[in-house]
């Protein structure tokens, strides 16, 4: 695993020097993991917006009432997207049961919620590094000089993201995926920029938080 991380980082370093580069491709992995057995009776349930936000709130350390607000005022679930995110509101909206079929806007609403939450978390981490949950400064040397995030930092951050959102450790493949994704986020910017690192954390958080595993159970 260490060799793969280092080679991935070598790719990051090489690409960071490029002023303009085409979108870097993510590494292709050999089919070394056996295919899982398909369920003979597949059923998954949507977490619905309230449970989704409660999980994120508990695991990312943001109070439920603050975790996601549209236009800085309206709670994402209670006010903005309650019905399309699987909620009910019988006395006023006459919606007695969750909608049977996902609305067109349901997956977009999930993406919005995930992006709100992750942007919030990283912003809070940058404002108060001592209480950081996802974006921890360690990539940057004690002398204050920024340096390209190293394997240890990438691993730890990937672990923090998966641990917080999916409540498990990432597999090797998942770590490699996220580490290699750093080059896409850098996208012609200096790889050792704290903003790039923050963007990578935000977007990795977003990708994991809006993944099927996070949204269904």
């Amino acid at each position, binding site marked *: 695993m260490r060799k793969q991380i280092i080679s991935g980082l070598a790719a990051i370093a090489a690409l960071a020097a490029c002023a303009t580069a085409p979108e870097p491709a993510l590494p292709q992995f050999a089919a070394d993991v*056996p295919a*899982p*057995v*398909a*369920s*003979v*009776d597949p*059923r*998954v*349930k949507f*977490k619905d917006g*309230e*449970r989704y936000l*409660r*999980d994120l709130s*508990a*695991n990312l350390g943001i109070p439920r009432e603050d975790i996601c607000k549209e236009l800085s005022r309206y709670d994402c679930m209670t006010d903005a997207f309650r019905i399309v995110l699987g909620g*009910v509101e*019988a*006395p*006023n909206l*006459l919606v*007695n*049961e969750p909608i*049977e079929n996902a609305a067109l806007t349901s997956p977009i609403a999930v993406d919005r919620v995930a992006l709100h939450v992750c942007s919030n978390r990283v912003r809070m981490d940058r404002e108060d590094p001592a209480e950081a949950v996802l974006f921890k400064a360690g990539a940057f040397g004690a002398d204050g000089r920024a340096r390209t995030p190293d394997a240890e930092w990438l691993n730890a951050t990937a672990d923090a993201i998966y*641990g917080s959102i999916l*409540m*498990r450790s990432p597999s090797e493949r998942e770590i490699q995926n996220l580490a290699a994704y750093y080059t896409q986020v850098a996208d012609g910017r200096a790889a050792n920029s704290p903003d790039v690192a923050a963007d990578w954390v935000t977007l990795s958080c977003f990708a994991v938080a809006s993944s099927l595993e996070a949204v269904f*159970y």
Partner: protein
Amino acid sequence: MRNWKPRPGPWLTFGLAGIALAGAALAPGAPLIQTASAKPPAPMAFCHAYPEAKACNTGFADCVACHTTPPARNAFGMQISEKLAPGVTRPLSDEDFLKYLPVALKAVEDLDADSDGFSNIVEIMAGTQTADANSVPKSLACAADDASRAAGAQWNVCTFDAAYAFKKVHMDFCGRSPTRADMDAFRTITDEKQKLARISEALDQCLDSPYWLGPNGVVWNIANAKIRPAHAVKSGANPGPVPLGDYDDDYNLFTWASSDDHDVRDLLLAQYFVKRTGPVTLEQISEEELAKRPRGTAQPVPKDKRVGMISTRWFGAVNTMFTSIPRTTAAQAYRSYLGFDIARMQGLNTVPHEPKDYDIKGVGAPECAVCHATLDPLSYPFTRYNGISGGYSYNDDRLKDYVRVDGPRVAEAPAGGMILGEEVADLLEWGKVAANSDAFAMKVTYDYWKLLIGREPDVNDQAEYTRMWRGLKSATTYDYRVEKMLHDLVLTNAYGRP
């Protein structure tokens, strides 16, 4: 009201059964033209014969069990037809039809209407279509090598996975995932019995959570379609602009009867009301306290006339409203607590010589009587309970106030009626018959099953679903305690197999 979603299965059955029907019609000796007339009691009669068939999960079979487009029969229906009261003059009366149907069903059990290799009785019990060769019973067992691979995966999709069930219990009953520490600790347990005990422990805690029991919680929201709140006309706390009644009483009673060691039949038997004393705590209201309520939230029906959820002020306000013979009220009660939606021709149990049409609404016309021969006698016991006009009270002479509008015969409508084929003297007896019926147990179980499993009971769920609702009725099993049933439900394969 149960969601009315078009089901592709029956429509596919229509097409294929149509082909089967045409084939049958072309067979030597088969009639080219069928004569038949509608038999609304047939779905329930089918389920009297096969109460544990998948088609009878709701207490009544779909018409597609025997028909393509009613009254045209599919291949299975044709087989029954050949055995049904041979020699008796057609069309059969409803009484004759119901009398001879069980024998005819028995006679065709070992036949195979769709020639798919599975006999009719096997398919009926399995829940597959007897007249559709593409619909065959399936096994959910994994192949041996898949089973061993699945056992080593994150989730074991070939069997009940205790870790998966542990996580689901938290999501479904507590409204959140277990913490990572809890999940990791669970995974260290090796003894299966200990795992199940841990699941049960988690469930116990979550059943007392605000997410499950609180206002606007899970149990509360199950009642939405039964209570049909409308804030615009709410009285009491947080009233609407036109306060007519407070549905909080209804929600609290529903939550009470569905929780702890309470008998869920109190939904139709309770003669008390319940108040909320905390986020998850409820207690019965004394009659003295109830009597002190202001006019806007009073419950005027006297204690000895109360019938649980179906005689509350709110129920009368939104269903009976200003009606003499409150058919909508009876239909809503039938739908909500027994699962029969008469508007969709479910639960029809024709009563001879009905409807009498006491209020001259024209319900005696043949096309109306199909439903009203069940609905009207179902409604008579509700006629002594006022809605908005009459102040939500009980009044034996109530119908006299409707003579001017509905004609003199309306005052002759009896207080007694019929439900599920049984005569009842009043609404109290109506409630008792309903509460003790299979349909009630099925409906209660169905509501939680659909919520927690994520779908209606399926072909492969029959054994477990039947065990749940029969257990609910049994004094030695769950004894009408919802939480006891839930403790077993979360240990079923339907719940815990990923």
